[in-house]
């Protein structure tokens, strides 16, 4: 398996950093796209389909109905730019009632200079369970732009978890555009992790949540010197008794972070909570937390908490009194800060996240 990827000429170390294993025993499906070309894709599990969107369009007449259904072509210049004939991306679908615990991996690899245009469709059919890890990265030294459009459909009572790890270059600009539709009783968990330098990331996924549905957005973001990360999540609670949780941990070490969150309650008995925590690790840099709550119905429960600060000296001293050096104590506290308890995630994905966090520590401290 890995030799095959070797022939594909991608940097395997980079893939590992973003959780791509290249190991059939650890994944239930795989997809690898380099620039516009789907280099390889396969499903190793009966209940899940993994292919390129171009292939899916050929195979299923109905796929086009999911294309540009919850994202708008004319949303902005990037959606317009990605609306081309050579656009490619992954199509991942869990069949009705299928329980796909082992994650499907999908990798988008920017290899040559220029623009990568991606349009993905993910469908978790009724009562299915699907876990995806998506790693987006670029070839060492490349400069360019990644425009990644994604439309997620979580059908009735389905569960979808989507863990995305980004690792770019300081010369790469990244513009994901994401929409998620969660049908009655469905749940969607998104984990977004960005720890390496990047020129710019600008992303603001929107989830539309129907009756009894839930959405959770977790993000862990580090902005190093010269990086600009404008990241957020929006939940539109459209159905009765739907809920949303948006949690972000952002760290600036010289870079600029805008941490947005927006919950809109427009049905009875909806619940939403927003939590933005920021840690400033250097004198320069910036963290701007913008939590927004909007109620369009009287019977809603929406709350937020936002806090930005530096590492408390008292905490460093406490750990030093237990034998840690100042650097070790600082590192333990930063690691703790980035820890978000993520419920309902398979161990394989927890491991991938932990590994990525460990790798990033070196740059951070």
């Amino acid at each position, binding site marked *: 398996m890995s030799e095959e990827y070797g022939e594909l000429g991608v940097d395997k170390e980079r893939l590992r950093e973003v959780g791509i294993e290249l190991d059939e025993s650890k994944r239930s499906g795989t997809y690898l796209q380099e620039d516009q070309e789907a280099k390889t894709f396969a499903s190793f599990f009966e209940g899940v389909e993994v292919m390129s969107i171009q292939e899916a369009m050929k195979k299923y007449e109905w796929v086009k109905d999911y294309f540009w259904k919850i994202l708008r072509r004319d949303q902005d210049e990037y959606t317009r730019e990605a609306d081309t004939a050579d656009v490619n991306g992954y199509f991942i679908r869990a069949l009705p009632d299928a329980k796909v615990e082992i994650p499907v991996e999908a990798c988008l690899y920017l290899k040559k200079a220029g623009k990568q245009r991606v349009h993905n469709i993910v469908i978790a059919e009724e009562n299915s369970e699907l876990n995806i890890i998506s790693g987006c990265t670029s070839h060492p030294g490349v400069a360019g732009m990644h425009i990644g459009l994604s439309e997620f459909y979580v059908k009735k009572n389905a569960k979808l978890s989507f863990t995305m790890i980004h690792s770019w270059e300081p010369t790469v600009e990244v513009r994901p555009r994401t929409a998620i539709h969660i049908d009655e009783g469905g749940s969607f968990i998104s984990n977004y992790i960005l720890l390496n330098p990047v020129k710019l990331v600008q992303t603001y996924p929107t989830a539309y949540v129907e009756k009894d549905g839930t959405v959770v957005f977790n993000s862990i973001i580090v902005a190093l010197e010269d990086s600009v990360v404008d990241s957020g999540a929006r939940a539109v609670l459209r159905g009765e008794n739907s809920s949303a949780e948006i949690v972000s941990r952002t760290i600036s070490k010289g870079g600029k972070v805008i941490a947005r969150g927006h919950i809109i309650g427009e049905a009875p008995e909806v619940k939403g909570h927003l939590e933005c925590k920021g840690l400033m690790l250097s004198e320069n840099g910036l963290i701007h937390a913008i939590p927004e709550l909007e109620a369009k119905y009287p019977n809603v429960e929406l709350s937020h908490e936002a806090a930005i600060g530096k590492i408390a000296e008292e905490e460093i001293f406490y750990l*030093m009194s237990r*034998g840690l050096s100042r650097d070790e104590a600082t590192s*333990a506290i930063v690691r703790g*800060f980035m820890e978000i308890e993520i419920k309902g995630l398979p161990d394989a994905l927890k491991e991938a996240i932990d590994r990525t966090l460990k790798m990033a520590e070196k740059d951070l401290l």
Partner: protein
Amino acid sequence: MGILRVVNLGVEVGEKKILKNVNLFIKPGETFVLFGPNGSGKSTLLNAIIGNPAYRVVSGRIMFKKIDVTNLPTNERAKLGIGIAFQNPPKINGVKLIDVLRYCAKVGGHSEETILELAEKMKMTDHLYREINVGFSGGEVKRSELLQLMLMNPDLILLDEPDSGVDLENVALIGEAINELLERDKDAESREKSGIIITHQGHILDYVDADYAAILYNGRIACIGEPEDILNQIRSEGYEGCMAKCLRNMENLE
């Protein structure tokens, strides 16, 4: 030979001078109880001994095991064998009790097995994977602090109000743990561990039998004597009365 020798110590916090010319000498195996009204500088003294950077030593020095530790970073002092149980330790998000216990076990040379064993003994097993001090009750904080010290196995043990905010049931367990840490369960001759205990109310003295007590007053140490005598005097005459008596007795020395 002393384990700790504090000489003419002056300490400032911010712009304020808290300790002036404090002198203290502790031999191996000796346990000292430190009394004093709020704000007299008891916690300041312990923080200065462990090297909290917020407490600035402006005069004098601190000798530990014949080494001048006055300018050593806190972790070096911990490795030399000074351990402290804080009165109000900070909560650290994302850092679990078990993580900190492992750091402590590394200092004391203890195994993972011992961590679990001692956690059981201190009734902290259920808290191992919780964020340290987050949502811990008063008693749980104190038990966690002592558990950390047990794993560090220090030679000089600094206990800042180990009995404050602790219910009676916990005071017994805490007293037992302190006796073990300070080897009070051994013969006086074979004791090697030394300690300084700050206690406001003195409850812990029902369980722990210390060698000496002193009163810290106005940034100075005064009234060294039997712990029970001093505690009784403070209870009957207050710090002021107790000090007045002490100072009268000390007039000839001045």
